[in-house]
Every structure is written in structure tokens, then in C-alpha cells.
């Protein structure tokens, strides 16, 4: 390979096996996976009947929020933030539900493709506005939150529409074994198929470059504006996927955005993605979402009042982020 020189240089500077280096780089995600494993054990202890069915329910309920978190990650890595994720999900969900109602299964395939394109377009509009107006991302997407939520209401006033059977079938049930929920497989598949090629391409590198230092990226020949627009298009695409899973799992479209936007920001930070941009990946936030949902399930098992569960969620969120920030500060010292 032509990368012998840099590798050997790195090896000299840092005499550690590649596995250790990779582990160090993903220490946050690995930690999250550890916490998740621990949580599963705890869940099994407090609710001995927790089994494949519980895992399946968890996977289905996690799906929309996980995709929202991935959408948010794409924007945040490029030093943006997208407060319109929830509204975009509502819009794509009602468009899908309206178009699929009483239509053939084949037509639904076209609808799914169309909705994904719609996600790219509305994400592109967000990104273009951010780049062209030079208004801070948070303000533009805050305003677009109203625009997409209004559009969703325009498409469908009250919850309604329908979903194709095959689409709903994609998220229900299990694959091969009892304990492999289809929803989890779909999530990993969809995110990997879209994210990994991008991460390895020039675009992926540009996303991280623009996120960590836009000026340096610009001087190295990265088109900052175009990269940002692409980041928002990705956010739109994943929001559309999230919207589709909403329609698929409920069988209808709901025009009122769920609590996905703010929870996605929380999941992104929990997942080890820096709000300052340029750091982290999509898998950390996904694991964070699963942890948050499983915690809620556990608290239900323990008969904790749902309101106190919300309180606990907030405290855990702050606690984990504080620990992360302390580790970071220590390292800097």
C-alpha cells in the first residue's frame, strides 16, 4: 500500500497496536456500549421475563428517534445544528401516509423513493438558506421548524393516511432468530449503507474538516458552503427515513412533530459528538438513544412515576455530559 510511510511514522510516534489505537479513538462509543450491556443485565434482573419480545418492542420504539439522532449528527459534525429535524419527520411522514393510502404495494415503492428525495430537497433548502443568508444555523433551522411543521399541517390536518403492508412489515417482527428484531437490522443496515461510504469518501472528510475548522478547510480547497449544504441534505434524508418509520410503525401520518428535535440534540451530545463540530460518528448517538429508551423501560418496570422518569432522564443527560466534560478538561490539563 502507498500509505506505508505515514503508518510507520505513526507507529514510531505511538508504539501501540492498531486495535488499541482504534479503541482509544472510539473510547466514548465503547463506553456507551458497555453501559448498554450493563443496562440489559440490570433489565433482566429487575424483570426476569424480559426477553426477545421486550427487545423487539425496544427496537421498534427506538427507530424514529435513532434516525433523528443520526440526522442531527450529520448537521452537528459539520458545525451546524438542525432544529427542524422533528418537523421534517412530521412532513415526510404525512406525505408518505397521504400518498400511500389505498394505493397498491408497488406504488408505495415509488412513494418511499419520492419521500426520500423530498427529504434531500427540504434538507437542501435548510442548508442553502444557512449558507446564503449567513444567519446562524440555529436561527435558520428554528424558523424552518415552523415552515416544515406548517407544511405538514397543510398536507394533513388531522392524523390519517395509510401505510403499505410491506413497509410496515419491514419494522415488525424478527429475523432468523427471536432475538434479532427486524427494526434493529433495518436501522443498522440503513445507517451503514448511507453513512459508511460517505464517511470514507471525500465528502466525509470535508464534513469533518468543515466542522473542526471552516477556515482551514477553505484554505485546503474544501468548498465550505457546498459541504454544509450536503450535510443538511443528509440530515433531511435521515429525517425522511425517520418520518417513514413513523408512518410504517403507526400505519398513519401525524402532522404534529414529536419531541424528536430536542431529544436528537441530547442523543448527539450523549453519543460523543461535539456541538462545536468535527468530532464523533453516527453510531455513538444511536447507542445513546437505545440507552435512553431502555432506561425509560427499566423505570416503568420499577414502577417509577413517568414524570419522575422524565426528571431522571434530564439528570442522567446532564450527569453523563458533565462527566464527559470533566474528562475532557482533565485531558487538556
Amino acid at each position, binding site marked *: 500500500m502507498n500509505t506505508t510511510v505515514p503508518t510507520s511514522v505513526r507507529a514510531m510516534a505511538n508504539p501501540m497496536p492498531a486495535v488499541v489505537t482504534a479503541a482509544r479513538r472510539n473510547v466514548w462509543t465503547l463506553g456507551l456500549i458497555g453501559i448498554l450491556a450493563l443496562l440489559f443485565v440490570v433489565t433482566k434482573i429487575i424483570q426476569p421475563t424480559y426477553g426477545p419480545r421486550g427487545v423487539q418492542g425496544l427496537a421498534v420504539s427506538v427507530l424514529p428517534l435513532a434516525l433523528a439522532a443520526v440526522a442531527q449528527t450529520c448537521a452537528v459534525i459539520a458545525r451546524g*445544528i438542525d432544529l427542524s429535524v422533528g418537523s421534517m419527520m412530521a412532513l415526510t411522514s404525512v406525505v408518505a401516509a397521504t400518498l400511500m393510502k389505498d394505493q397498491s404495494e408497488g406504488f408505495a415503492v415509488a412513494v418511499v423513493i419520492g419521500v426520500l428525495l423530498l427529504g434531500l430537497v427540504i434538507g437542501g433548502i435548510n442548508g442553502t*438558506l444557512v449558507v*446564503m*443568508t*449567513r*444567519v*446562524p444555523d*440555529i*436561527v*435558520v433551522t*428554528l*424558523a*424552518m*421548524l*415552523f*415552515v*416544515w*411543521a*406548517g*407544511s*405538514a*399541517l*397543510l398536507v394533513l*390536518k388531522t392524523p390519517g393516511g395509510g401505510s403499505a403492508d410491506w413497509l410496515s412489515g419491514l419494522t415488525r417482527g424478527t429475523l432468523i432468530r427471536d432475538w434479532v428484531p427486524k427494526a434493529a437490522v433495518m436501522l443498522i443496515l440503513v445507517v451503514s449503507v448511507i453513512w459508511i461510504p460517505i464517511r470514507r469518501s471525500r465528502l466525509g472528510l470535508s464534513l469533518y474538516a468543515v466542522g473542526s475548522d471552516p477556515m482551514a478547510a477553505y484554505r485546503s480547497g474544501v468548498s465550505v458552503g457546498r459541504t454544509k449544504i450536503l450535510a443538511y441534505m443528509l440530515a433531511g434524508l435521515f429525517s425522511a427515513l425517520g418520518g417513514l418509520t413513523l408512518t410504517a410503525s403507526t400505519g398513519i401520518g401525524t402532522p404534529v412533530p414529536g419531541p424528536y428535535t*430536542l431529544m436528537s*440534540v*441530547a442523543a448527539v*451530545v450523549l453519543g460523543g459528538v461535539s*456541538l462545536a463540530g468535527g468530532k464523533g460518528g453516527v453510531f455513538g448517538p444511536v447507542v445513546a438513544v437505545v440507552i435512553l429508551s431502555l432506561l425509560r423501560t427499566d423505570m416503568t418496570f420499577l414502577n417509577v*412515576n413517568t*414524570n*419522575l*422518569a*422524565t*426528571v*431522571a*432522564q*434530564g*439528570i442522567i*443527560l*446532564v450527569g453523563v*455530559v*458533565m462527566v464527559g*466534560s*470533566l474528562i475532557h*478538561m482533565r485531558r487538556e490539563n
Partner: protein
Amino acid sequence: MAQSSIPLRRWLSAAGLRTLLREQPIIPQLGLLAVLVVASELIRPGIVSPNWAGVMIRAAVPLAILAASQTMTMLTAGIDLSVGAVASMSGFVVATLVGGPGLGVGIIVALAAAAAVGFVNGIGAGIFRVHPLIMTLAMSLVVLGLANVWQIQMVQTGAGVPTEFRTVGASMFFDVVPVSLLVFVPLAVLIILVLNRTGYGRLLYAIGDNPTASRLSGAKSWQVLTVLYVISGILAGIAGFLFSGLTNVASVTLANSALLPSVAAAVIGGTSILGGRGAYGGTIVGALILTVISSILSSLGYPEAVRQILFGSLIVLVAAAYTRVTSPS
């Protein structure tokens, strides 16, 4: 200030006009407000009257107080997303306590709770350097959950918005001047004085403009931030009293819908979300602009969907125009 010493003639050139608009952002803001008032009159002839102005101001006052929290936190490059939950909580707490321990106790308890939330926010953002967005968002979850628990505890005693709040929040002297101005004007004057005339105000600008430089010159940012978020919480609490008085509703989610408009009001009012730039005067005009826009949109008789779309588009448009006018060319 320097502007007054520069001869008037300089403003008459195009470049001079740009400088004027950049240095006095309140001028284009007031211009936009005037345009919107004229538009209201054109859309519904005869609607603009002293009474209409009073109704607009009455609706804008609680929003402007919430937006004060955003303005001050945004000056330090922060944001306070807990103000919606805190405002709802404080209005609700008073409504539940007024029947038993009384109005005074209710107000003290509510403001103490609001200040406590702000204190935690400040500690998190100041000492632990948690991003204010996350810190305040998580605290809003905590507040909402606790307020719900409180609601379940208090459901037997029955809740009602105190008459005093209804008088202050909703009545108007001679059908023109909202009573809430009695609360708002001193508060606004105090905020503007603190921002412009005190060392603490300077520190807020300094920390937002350049955290490293302010640290090197001896500013203890964690102290400044802790005090700031406590102030922000108390302001949200006061706004909550006015919201509950204005709507005669006590609910744990009452002011949640005002959270995003409060950020928008500060932004339209010229406060930079990146820190170091902004003034409360602009934010007040921003709150008025948003109130007049929503009034126009509802008087047009469009459905909620179209109203939301237009509202969002107008925010982008105003923010973009504002950035264009005021950015150094």
C-alpha cells in the same frame, strides 16, 4: 457616544447610511415595525387604534421578558432553553398555592424555584462547561417532570390564576395602556442599565466576545455565568406570572410555545447568537415585531398551517436582511 460628534452630512451618503444602520440597528428594526403596523392597517382598515396598540403591547410584554433571558444568555454565547418550562412552572406553582398559603408565599416559592433552576444551569454551564444548549434543555426536562409531579400532588386543592395576576397581566388602563407595563418598564430599564452601565454588563459582553481574553484579564466566567442563569431563571418566572395572568390559564406547559419565539425575538432584535453583540432595546422591538406579525397572520384568516409557514419564512427573511444590513461589508 461617538456617533453624535460625526456631522449629519456623513449619513447622507450610501456608505454612511450603511454605517448608521450598522451602528444603530434599532433604526431598521423600528422601520420594520412601522411597515408592519402600516400593513396591518392596509389589510384591515381601521384596525390600528390606541386600543389595538395596547393589545399588541400587552401580548408582547411576557414574550419580551422571556426574550430578555435569551438576550442576556446569548451575549455570553449561551442560550436558555429552560425558560419555557420555568415560566410555565412558576405560573402554575402560584396558582396552586394561592388558595392555601397565599399569593405572597406562592410568588416567593415560584421565584425561588426558578432561581434554583437557573443556579443549576449556571453551575453546569459555568463550572462543568456543559454546552448551555444541553444544560438548559436537560433542566427543562427536569422542571417539566417535577411540575407534573407537583400537579398530581396538588390536584385535590384546586388551582386558579390569582386575580392579581389577571389584573396585572390582562387589564389595561383606559383600554389603552396595559397594566403589565408597571412591571415591564422598571424591569426593562433595569436590564438596559445593567447591560450598558455596570461592570457586570460589560463582563457579559466580554465573555461572549472573547472568552480567552476575558479570562486572561481576570474575569471569573463561572461566577458571571452562575449569576446570569439565576437572573435568567427569575426573569422566566416573572414572565410566567404574566403569561398565566394574560391567558387566565395555569398549566405546566403554558409557556412552552413561547420558547422558540423568545429566541426568535432576541435574534430579530439584533442579538448575535454567537455572543458579544446585542442590546435589550432591540429585543423589545423584536418581540413587538413577532406579536404584530402573528396578529396580521391571524387577521388574514389563513389556516394555522399557512400561518406557521409564513411566520417561519418571515423570521428567515428578517434575520437575513438584518445580517446583510449590519454585517461589515
